[in-house]
């Protein structure tokens, strides 16, 4: 594979939790992705603009502080509006206010248009594998062509 897949990381809204974000950057870089990390307090606009600029395959949104539900609404719509669809959208962290059964959280965020949703204690290795699989599935055609060219 000649090019690494670009993915975007960031903590959405007014959220300042920076520790997990730094770890995610380290991790996905070590997993072979090209990571564009927007850090904390990232607006939907910033996510989408960066996706356009970098031709990213996925946006991994973090929300830890509880306002995820409010902050993430409309992100998928904005992606569609700006023409970066079908981009992969993942969400992870403490996505809602208060201890909530994960299935409830998952449903909420899937309804909002996220492809996958993860709890804070998710095994990151597994996420990387899913991400590779999802990229393969959604962008496989394009990918294959690229790979053929590079042969």
């Amino acid at each position, binding site marked *: 594979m000649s090019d690494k897949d670009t993915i975007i990381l960031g903590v959405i*809204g*007014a*959220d*300042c*939790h*920076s*520790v997990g974000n*730094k*770890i995610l950057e*380290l991790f996905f870089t070590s997993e072979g992705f090209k990571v564009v990390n927007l*850090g*904390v*307090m990232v607006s939907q606009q910033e996510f989408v603009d960066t996706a356009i600029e970098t031709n990213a395959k996925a946006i991994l949104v973090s929300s830890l*502080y*509880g*306002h995820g*539900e*409010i902050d993430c609404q409309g992100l998928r719509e904005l992606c569609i509006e700006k023409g970066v669809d079908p981009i992969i959208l993942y969400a992870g962290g*403490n996505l*809602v*206010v*208060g*201890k*909530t059964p994960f299935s409830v959280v998952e449903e909420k965020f899937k309804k909002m248009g996220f492809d996958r949703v993860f709890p*804070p*204690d998710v095994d990151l290795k597994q996420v990387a594998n899913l991400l590779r699989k999802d990229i393969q599935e959604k962008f496989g055609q394009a990918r294959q062509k690229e790979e053929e060219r590079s042969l």
Partner: protein
Amino acid sequence: MLKNEKIELKEFFELRKEVLQTWPTGQDVSIEEGMKFHRTIPEEKRFAWVMKKALQEGKLLLQPRAGVALIDDHIKLLRYLENEGQADLLPTTIDAYTRQNRYQEAEKGIEKSRQAGTSLLNGFPAVNYGVTGCRRVVESLSKPIQVRHGTPDARLLAEITLAAGFTSFEGGGISYNIPYAKRVSVEKSIRDWQYVDRLVGLYEENGVRINREPFGPLTGTLVPPCLSIAIGIIEGLLALKQGVKSITLGYGQGGNIIQDVAAIAAINQLAEEYFRQEEFDDYELTTVFHQWMGGFPEDEAKAFSVIALGAMVAKFSGAEKVIVKSPHEAMGIPTKEANAQGLRASRQAINMVEDQVIFDSEDLAEEVELIKKEVHCLIDKTYEMGAGDLALGTVAAFEAGVLDVPFAPSIYNHGKIIPMRDTEGFIRIFNKGNLPLTEEIMNYHHQRLMERARAEGRVISFEMVTDDIYAISKGKLVGRPK
């Protein structure tokens, strides 16, 4: 220009006009009316008085964190913590939009919460409720109550909540910027916090004592004690300059018992030293110990042990206050029940050790001395960089990485230092970045870290840091390889 000098009243009132205009509720704030109300508050409901009493009696007071979007629910919550939780001190934790002065979004959060019938905000949007709303909170409770937030520009929040009758206000120009914000310059936040401190000084001059509490734990993640303490003392000095008299310096549990107990001892000794050096002598100094501020275990049984050990160490340390976590910590804002469980578990642990005298060992003296030496390096250099002016020095120090908070989100922070645990779990510094620590000190840190590397049969690497960050939540203190 920024300077560590008491803001002139004229300048203060000019600034004030602007501040009060930033949101409609600002119009209702009257400092006079606020003072009048404060004078009706009985002693046992005044933060400063209760903290001082704890100091005199050697007591450790318990305080939870708590805040929800809707005012009646918020009152219900605090009453529950007062009664079922037997909290000694109450909080009002502010939501994260208000912290960023995004009152419009907070308003939306209130709306949506009303619709949902549950809080969709992670705290209480005090500014939106204004003096009248906040006053209702204060009047509904019988314990002293503090504003806890994380707001780089807290001027309007302070105006409203103090006038409403809150008797303590957390934060500071460094500790509520660097860990909580991304693009706010240190110069701006120090200036804005000078305003807050000046406001508190104004109340003080009129006989109303408001307690102030710099936020000790910073990012809550592998923060070396010397950094947390140096920053706390600097914020204390800046506050004293504006006329504040009741100061509570904070520290977040690091995990090694000896280091944690030593840190509180060092805070007291160092604060006295620096405060007196600047010729302050009529302040009231107390300390607050925060139970583990990093990632918690998800399992509630395990979380309880983190809480119990934190409470115990708080008591050993001799702090006057402990901020209590709940068994829901890793998962989300706690229910009132979980919050009260955290309080009751803490109380039990504290009571079981309060009569016991465990620490006078040599290890402790050694660690206190080390911390003191380190803090001297940091603060003295900060003074130097400001040519004697601590406010200017602080700005320069962050610019140069002389003060540097690990894992912080702020672009005004270097983020170069690399802390990690030694083999006994003490937080040490592997890469000092630009911290002005002496070679002798760094040799000691490296030596202790080498011991760990040897014990684990691996070279010192960033992996150790990641392992350490996850450690407590995975049920360990030191992040050993598997």
